[in-house]
C-alpha cells in the first residue's frame, strides 16, 4: 500500500505539487488523472524516490520508501525511450537485472510477454528495427519484466493500436486481480473510466477531486440526455430543464440542470421535433473533467 500525506514539491517559484494526500490499495487500479502539466509525473517521481518532496511523507506499507523497495515497483514513464542499439531480449534482461531478479526467472517473463504481444519473432532484433508501436510494447514489457507488486503506468496506451490497447487493458486488469497495486496516470478519461476503481484528479498541483469513480460521478456529474431527431432544435437551449447543449451533426447532448424533470423535457421536444432516440445517460468522466477544469480556470482568469 502506498500512502501520500501532504506531499509538496516546489520548483523555483512554481508549486508543482501542493499538499497532496492519497492512498492506493492492493488489488485496485488507481487513476491519477489530470491535464498535461498538472503534477502527475512529479508525483510519480516522488513516489519512486527519483526526486525528494520538499515536505510531506510518502509511506510504503507504513514505512518510508527505501532503495530496496524500487525492486518491487515497475515503472512505465510517460517519456518513452529505449536503447536503440540494444537487442530486445538483451535490453529486457538488463533492465530486469537492475531490478535484482535472476536471469532465468526474467527470461521466463520476457518470453511470456513477448508472446503476449506477438513479438517473439523480434526477440533478437535491435530496438531501432522495431516499429513505433512495437517499441511501445517492448517499453511496456520493461515495466513488468521483473513481476513487480506495484505498477506505475504513465499513459500506458499511448501509441498502441486498438487491438493492443484491449489486450493490454485485459493484462492490467488481470494484474490487479492478482493483488498487485496499479497506479495509472492519464489525461484520457475514457481509458480511466474503463479500468480505474478509484481516481485522484489533480490540476495545478492540487487535488480537484478524489474517490471511487461512481461516487465522483454522483457528486459532480450532471445527468445528460442524448437526442436523435429531425427538425429545428434551436429552441432547446432556452428550455427550463437545460443547463447546456452540445451540438453534433446527427444528435445533440443536453446537460440537465439538477433535479430537472426529464419527462417534461421529452414532452417539450416532441412538440417541435420528430424524435428518433431519447436516452438518459450517466455523465462521462470526460465531461466531469472538462467541467471541473473549466470551473477551476474561471476564477483564475
Amino acid at each position, binding site marked *: 500500500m502506498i500512502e501520500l500525506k501532504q506531499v509538496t514539491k516546489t520548483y523555483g517559484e512554481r508549486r508543482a505539487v501542493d499538499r497532496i494526500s492519497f492512498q492506493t490499495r492492493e488489488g485496485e487500479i488507481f487513476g491519477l488523472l489530470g491535464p498535461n502539466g498538472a503534477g502527475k509525473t512529479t508525483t510519480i*517521481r516522488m513516489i*519512486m524516490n527519483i526526486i*525528494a518532496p520538499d515536505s510531506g511523507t510518502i509511506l510504503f506499507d507504513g514505512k518510508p520508501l527505501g532503495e530496496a523497495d*524500487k*525492486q518491487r515497483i515497475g515503472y512505465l514513464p510517460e517519456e518513452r525511450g*529505449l*536503447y536503440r542499439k540494444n537487442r530486445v531480449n538483451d535490453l529486457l534482461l538488463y*533492465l530486469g537485472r*537492475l531490478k*535484482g531478479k535472476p536471469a532465468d526467472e526474467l527470461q521466463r517473463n520476457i518470453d511470456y510477454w513477448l508472446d503476449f504481444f506477438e513479438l517473439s519473432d523480434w526477440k533478437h532484433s535491435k530496438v531501432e528495427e522495431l516499429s513505433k508501436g512495437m517499441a511501445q510494447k517492448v517499453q511496456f514489457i520493461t515495466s513488468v519484466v521483473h513481476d513487480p507488486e506495484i505498477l506505475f503506468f504513465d499513459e500506458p496506451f499511448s501509441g498502441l493500436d486498438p487491438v493492443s490497447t484491449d489486450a493490454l487493458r485485459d493484462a492490467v486488469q488481470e494484474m490487479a486481480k492478482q493483488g498487485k497495486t496499479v497506479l495509472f496516470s492519464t489525461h484520457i478519461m475514457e481509458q480511466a473510466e474503463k479500468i480505474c476503481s478509484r481516481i485522484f484528479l489533480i490540476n495545478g498541483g492540487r487535488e480537484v477531486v478524489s474517490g471511487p469513480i461512481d461516487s465522483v460521478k454522483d457528486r459532480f456529474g450532471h445527468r445528460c440526455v442524448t437526442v436523435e431527431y429531425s427538425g429545428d432544435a434551436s429552441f432547446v437551449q432556452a428550455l427550463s430543464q437545460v443547463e447546456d447543449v452540445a451540438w453534433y451533426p446527427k444528435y445533440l447532448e443536453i446537460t440537465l440542470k439538477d433535479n430537472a424533470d426529464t419527462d417534461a423535457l421529452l414532452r417539450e421536444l416532441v412538440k417541435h421535433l420528430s424524435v428518433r432516440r431519447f436516452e438518459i445517460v450517466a455523465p462521462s468522466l470526460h465531461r466531469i473533467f472538462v467541467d471541473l477544469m473549466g470551473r477551476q480556470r474561471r476564477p483564475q482568469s
Partner: protein
Amino acid sequence: MKINRTAVIAGHEFRGITSTKAFVIITVIGPFLILAVSVLPGLIAQRADGAPSDARIGIAGMDTELIEVFQDSLKETGFTLVPGEDLEQMKQMMLDDELYGLLEIPGDLVQVQEFIYYSKTGTDASVFETLRAVLGNMAVTLRMEEAGLDSRQIRELSALPGISVRRLSRSGVEESRDMFSIIVTAVSFVMLLYMTILLYGQMIGRSIVIEKTSKTVEILLSSARAKEIMFGKILGIGAAGLLQYALWIAAGLLIILVIGPVLDISLPSGLNPVTLLFLLLFFLAAFLLYASVYAALGAAAEDEQNLGQLAWPLILFLVIPMIMISPIVMNPSSGFALVLSYFPLTAPVVMFTRVLVSMPKAWELLLCFAVLAASIALTVRAAAKVFRVGILMTGKRFTLKEIAVWVKHDK
C-alpha cells in the same frame, strides 16, 4: 535479492563498448601504432631527411683529376658525379631529370670563394651540405698543399673533433640518445594518452547525454540511484579502456621482450616496461578525472551539441600540453613544465612527458599522484551532485556558471 546495481550498469556499458567495431579496430591498430612508434624513429634517423642515395650530380668547371678525387671522397654517399663542359646543356639535362643537381665551380678550386649549386627544390640541404663539406675540405687541403704541408700533416691539422651525445639518467646508466628519436617517442606516447583520455571522456559524456535524449534515464532512475548510474557508467567504460590498454601493453611487452631481441631491432629507450606502466597509471588517473567531469557535463547537457559546448574548456586543458609538447620535451625542468605537471588537468600528460624524457624524482611523482588522487576525490563528489540535479533537467541549456551553483546548493 540483493544486487550490485553499479556492477550491472557497468557490465552493460562494458559490453556495449567492447562489442562495437570501433573498439575492435582501435584495439587492433593500437599495437601497430606502438610498433611504428618503436621502429620508425630509428628508420627515420638513418635516412635523416631523405636524400636520394644514387643522385647524379652534374659538375662543370673542374679538372678531370680533381673530379676523380672528389668522386672518391663521395664514395660513402652514393652520389655519382657527371662531368660536363656546357653549363646550359647541363641545366637542360637537370630539367629533364637526367641530373639530380648541378654544381658549378667558377674558377680555380684553390682560390674560389663560392661554389654554385643548382637545385630543383633549394631545400635538399643534405645534398648540398655534403657537397659543401667535401668540396670545402678539398679546397682547404689544396691550399695547405700549396703552403708546403705534406698530406699527413694536413690530415692531422684538418681533423675535426666529433661530438658524442650521452644522456645521464637517474639510474646512472649512460646511454647515447638521439634527440629526434626521443621526441618522436614522446610525442607518439603522449598522443596516445591524449587521444584515449579524450576518447573515453567523451564516451562517458555522450553515453550519459544519450540517456537523456533517448528518455531512458527515468527507467534507470526507477531502478537505481543517480550515483549508481554515474559510477556504473564510469566503471564500465573505464574497464573497456583498461582492457584496451592491457592489450596494447601486452603487445608492447611482446615487442620489447620477444620481437625486438629476435629481429634485433634497436628499440627506442622510451619503450620499456617502466614507461608502459606509467602510461597505464597516468591513463587511469586522467580517465577518472576527466570521466567524472564529463559525466557531470553529460548529465547537465541538453543534447550532444550542448555537451560539446560545455566541454570546451575541458578539452583546452588537454590541448595545451599537446601544443606545448615541444618546449616541454626540450626543457622538462622549465618552470612552465613544472607547473603544468602538478596542475591536475594537465598533470597526467605533462608528467608523463617528463617521465619519457627525463625521469622525475620519486617525490615529484608521488606529489603528482597525490594531487591527482585528491583532485579525483573532489571532482567525483562534485560530479555526483551535478549529475543528480542535471540528469532530470530537460528542455533548458545551462551555462557552466549555473551548473557550478548546483554543486554548492545541492540539498
